[in-house]
């Protein structure tokens, strides 16, 4: 396959994204737009302390207010529902929507008020009197690890949720045999994806039909299952509406606690109940924080910069309860050596609870922090040896001819051509010229640095990290599905079975089916049945939908094509080998004038059963449930696992200046080489990559859920939590390369996390390159202006400037 394969008619062509039409006119179907009659609204009473026992809750003043219907506390809810699913084997760390007896972080929900309007519910929430007894708390992960630390969950007996060490290969021997060692400590600060739409959910229970209707701004695997389990109702009584447009997620829209809360309330109260987070609820008690991770990395290498072995300890501060966070230490196992041929690895994954907000899944599922740790280390290896950082990367990288390549942790990388991608970027932007520009800026009095990052995006989302982290989990499939029907007049309708949050899945499905059936994708309707009418979907996590939903659509379309061809050959009376399918018609290779048109075939399938092959179902309805390519095997006893089926590659090359007086960084040049295999829609892939870079710049420089020493979240609004604006995101040039995956139907790989997986590493490396002349460095992200300014001032003072 080449960059613009001539055998693709629609795939890889610059087609519009069909979802866009409804968004540009303000007709998206967001959860706050859904108007269910008689809906009442929830506001929350939250704990002001990082840890406190709840001694009493006085609801009387709130309940006396006209228009207030109910005040729900944690005790009532806990008695009626099961704790939320965590996937960990930690029964004494239960997670519930409302705190039960003890609140464990500032902002944790203690009670929920239901009223006629949201404003009234907020008014009433202020009148709920909760008596607390303040308890000791712990915020820092390393402190939480120490013997004698305050325990966040007494009954668990420690703060450790996970402590697992994997050794893949002869780590000790490789370290002993290597002439050089280097250690680095890297901290990834607590940030998240922070979508512009907060999480929201509307739930409505119909006690006669016994159906719980749920409309939510959700991106979550097994959402309906988790609702049914927690509320103790059959999953067949839960109807999640997948036609809700999600206003951004990037992993984090996992409002299961919100959903169980309103699900219980609508069942208890008999009317629809809605909870739309305000921004404070979203940032503080919405349980939507991302990784806060401390790395200790040791590498063993030789004088040429070839790294033989790595030891990595990753300590995750998950907050007060286990969301998906501990598993985010597991996914990076599938790309633990990045694009490099490191022969042996020791990886210790540790997760501790503290009195901070609970984490959920964030874009990359823990891979971006891990990539920062790897890429910072590679740069330090190069610096130690006085070698060029790109050259060191080239020497360590897997070569094109070595694929498929199995890394020590057991995952086989599908394909890649890393050296060529780097060559293409450097052919586009001269590295020598960039270095000259950096040096010119330096001699003009600026601090300037070049940042490089070469990172992988594991894609095709499989849930194998679950079985790796918790051996009691034996799940080896993570399906996605597509159903195609052709109606009696010949129109094509395809289904997908999840919500989307901007990834253009309807465009994906129609493009792939159009490609296979050789019909205009714009003529194909794509619908989203509700969860009771759906086939299995693992949902859009782990950069999987191009591979999995695209794959399911491809296979379903081929089944349809096969059926159409069989009907035609039977009706034409020719052997199958002579049948040619083209543009929705089938003709006889030997007599092209003998053909059955699309209309003919629809007529036969829908109305002329007497013309059908004898063993064939009437009608034109096909479906395909797809297993993840390369999936299906449990991890080995020593923790080797085939994690995801595909690995996309990105190479970042950037130039950053820092104002030496203010500490303000500015990215003055940004180039990225990107290879995600066959691109299905170039507009979508470009947008994902650009958005990921912007998000990565935020994580590297601006965004942090910072806490003060008293356990109060300091970033409670967008005045404190700084999202990159158009001023902070520089123009970016993307240099494309296509190395098709052998594991997917069209050669495609994932791109939903692209940019984000390398941008923080590139920025961190650029800042450190800029600081190097001052003899200082920083490995704590985000690298905020204030910290940079102080560091630079201190270093200059020491140098006698």
């Amino acid at each position, binding site marked *: 396959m080449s960059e613009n394969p001539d055998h693709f008619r629609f795939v890889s062509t610059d087609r519009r994204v069909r979802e866009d039409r409804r968004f540009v006119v*303000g007709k998206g179907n967001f959860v*706050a737009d859904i108007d269910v009659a008689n809906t009442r609204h929830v506001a929350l009473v939250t704990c002001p302390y990082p840890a406190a026992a709840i001694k009493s809750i006085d609801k009387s003043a709130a309940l006396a207010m006209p228009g207030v219907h109910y005040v729900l506390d944690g005790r009532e809810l806990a008695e009626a529902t099961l704790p939320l699913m965590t996937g960990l084997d930690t029964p004494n760390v239960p997670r519930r929507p409302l705190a039960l007896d003890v609140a464990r972080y500032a902002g944790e929900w203690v009670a929920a008020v239901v009223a006629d309007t949201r404003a009234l519910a907020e008014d009433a929430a202020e009148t709920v009197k909760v008596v607390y007894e303040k308890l000791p708390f712990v915020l820092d992960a390393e402190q939480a690890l120490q013997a004698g630390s305050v325990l966040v969950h007494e009954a668990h007996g420690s703060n450790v949720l996970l402590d697992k060490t994997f050794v893949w290969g002869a780590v000790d021997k490789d370290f002993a045999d290597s002439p050089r060692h280097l250690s680095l400590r890297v901290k990834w600060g607590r940030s998240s994806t922070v979508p*512009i*739409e907060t999480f929201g959910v509307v739930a409505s229970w119909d006690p006669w039909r016994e159906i719980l209707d749920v409309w939510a701004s959700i991106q979550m695997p097994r959402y309906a299952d988790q609702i049914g389990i927690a509320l103790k109702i059959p999953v067949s009584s839960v109807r999640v509406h997948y036609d809700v447009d999600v206003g951004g997620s990037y992993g984090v829209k996992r409002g299961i606690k919100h959903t169980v809360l309103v699900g219980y309330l609508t069942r208890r109260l008999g009317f629809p109940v809605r909870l739309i987070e305000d921004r404070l609820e979203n940032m503080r008690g919405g349980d939507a924080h991302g990784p806060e991770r401390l790395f200790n990395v040791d590498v063993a290498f030789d004088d040429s910069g070839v790294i033989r072995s790595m030891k990595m300890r990753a300590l995750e501060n998950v907050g007060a309860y286990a969301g998906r966070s501990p598993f985010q230490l597991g996914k990076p196992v599938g790309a633990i050596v990045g694009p490099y041929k490191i022969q042996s690895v020791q990886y210790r994954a540790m997760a501790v609870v503290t009195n901070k907000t609970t984490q959920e899944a964030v874009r990359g599922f823990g891979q971006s922090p891990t990539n920062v740790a790897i890429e910072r280390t590679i740069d330090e290896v190069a610096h130690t040896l006085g070698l060029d950082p790109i050259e060191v990367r080239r020497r360590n990288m897997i070569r094109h001819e070595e694929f498929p390549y199995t890394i020590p942790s057991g995952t086989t990388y599908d394909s890649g051509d890393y050296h060529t991608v780097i060559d293409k970027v450097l052919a586009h932007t001269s590295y020598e010229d960039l270095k000259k520009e950096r040096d010119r800026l330096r001699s003009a009095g600026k601090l300037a640095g070049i940042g490089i990052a070469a990172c992988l995006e594991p894609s095709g989302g499989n849930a194998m990290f679950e079985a790796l982290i918790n051996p009691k989990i034996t799940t080896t499939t993570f399906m996605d599905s597509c159903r195609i029907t052709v109606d009696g007049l010949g129109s094509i309708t395809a289904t997908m079975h999840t919500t989307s*949050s*901007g990834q253009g899945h309807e465009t994906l499905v129609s493009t792939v089916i159009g490609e296979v059936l050789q019909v205009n994708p714009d003529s194909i309707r794509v619908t989203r049945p509700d969860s009771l009418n759906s086939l299995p979907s693992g949902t859009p996590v782990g950069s999987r939908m191009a591979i999995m939903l695209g794959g399911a659509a491809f296979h379903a379309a081929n089944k349809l094509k096969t059926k159409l061809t069989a009907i035609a050959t039977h009706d034409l009376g020719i052997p199958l080998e002579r049948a040619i399918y083209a543009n929705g018609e089938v003709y006889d290779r030997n007599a092209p004038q003998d053909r059955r048109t699309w209309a003919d075939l629809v007529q036969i399938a829908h109305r002329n059963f007497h013309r059908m092959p004898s063993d064939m179902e009437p009608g034109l309805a096909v479906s395909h449930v797809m297993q993840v390519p390369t999936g299906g095997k449990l991890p080995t006893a020593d923790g080797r696992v085939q994690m995801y089926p595909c690995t996309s590659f990105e190479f970042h090359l950037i130039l950053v200046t820092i104002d030496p007086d203010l500490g303000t960084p500015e990215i003055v040049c940004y180039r990225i080489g990107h290879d995600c295999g066959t691109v299905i829609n170039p507009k979508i892939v470009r947008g994902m990559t650009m958005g990921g870079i912007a998000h990565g710049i935020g994580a590297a420089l601006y965004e942090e859920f910072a806490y003060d020493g008293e356990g109060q979240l300091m970033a409670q609004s*967008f005045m404190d939590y700084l999202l990159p604006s*158009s001023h902070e995101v520089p123009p970016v040039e993307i240099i494309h390369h296509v190395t098709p995956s052998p594991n997917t139907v069209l050669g495609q790989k994932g791109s939903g996390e692209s940019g984000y997986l390398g941008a923080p590493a590139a920025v961190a490396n650029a800042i450190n390159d800029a600081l190097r002349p001052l003899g200082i460095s920083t490995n704590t992200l985000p690298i905020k202006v204030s910290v940079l300014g102080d560091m630079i001032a201190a270093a200059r003072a020491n140098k006698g400037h």
Partner: protein
Amino acid sequence: MRIELNVNGAVHELEVEPRTTLLDCLRDQLALTGAHAGCEHGVCGACTVLFDGVAVRACLMFAVQAQGTPITTIEGVTPGPGELSPIQDAFCETHGMQCGYCTPAMILVAHALLANNPDPTREDIVEAISGNICRCTGYAQIVEAFALAAERLRGANRPSELRK
């Protein structure tokens, strides 16, 4: 209290609380749901509407304050059922969005900018959208949508033989 709002060329008599924001009033009472709540403290810009042609944040204004001034929402710049304005079409052409949540606001900002500056530079566009946060796109395809719309609108105002 009783107020009159002039929205998208129509006058509506409404009963609102004094504390009701313009955003909540537009969404809850007039069912104009194209304006979105993002932060509700004036930073993200998702609630942007045009206030006498100027892009303002509907979350930072009470409905009562909007009396007597024409307000335009995304619904008011859409030409008709199934039709797109040149600016809306330009956003589709460049895919200047992903999730669509900030999009109506961005388009209204484009209307406000291009009404006064038919040939904006990249810096003009970046400045115009700097109060509107997009978490999906990294802004590149939004900036391109503005530029494309400007180019097309400039062309539309010239005799056909002079168009590119």
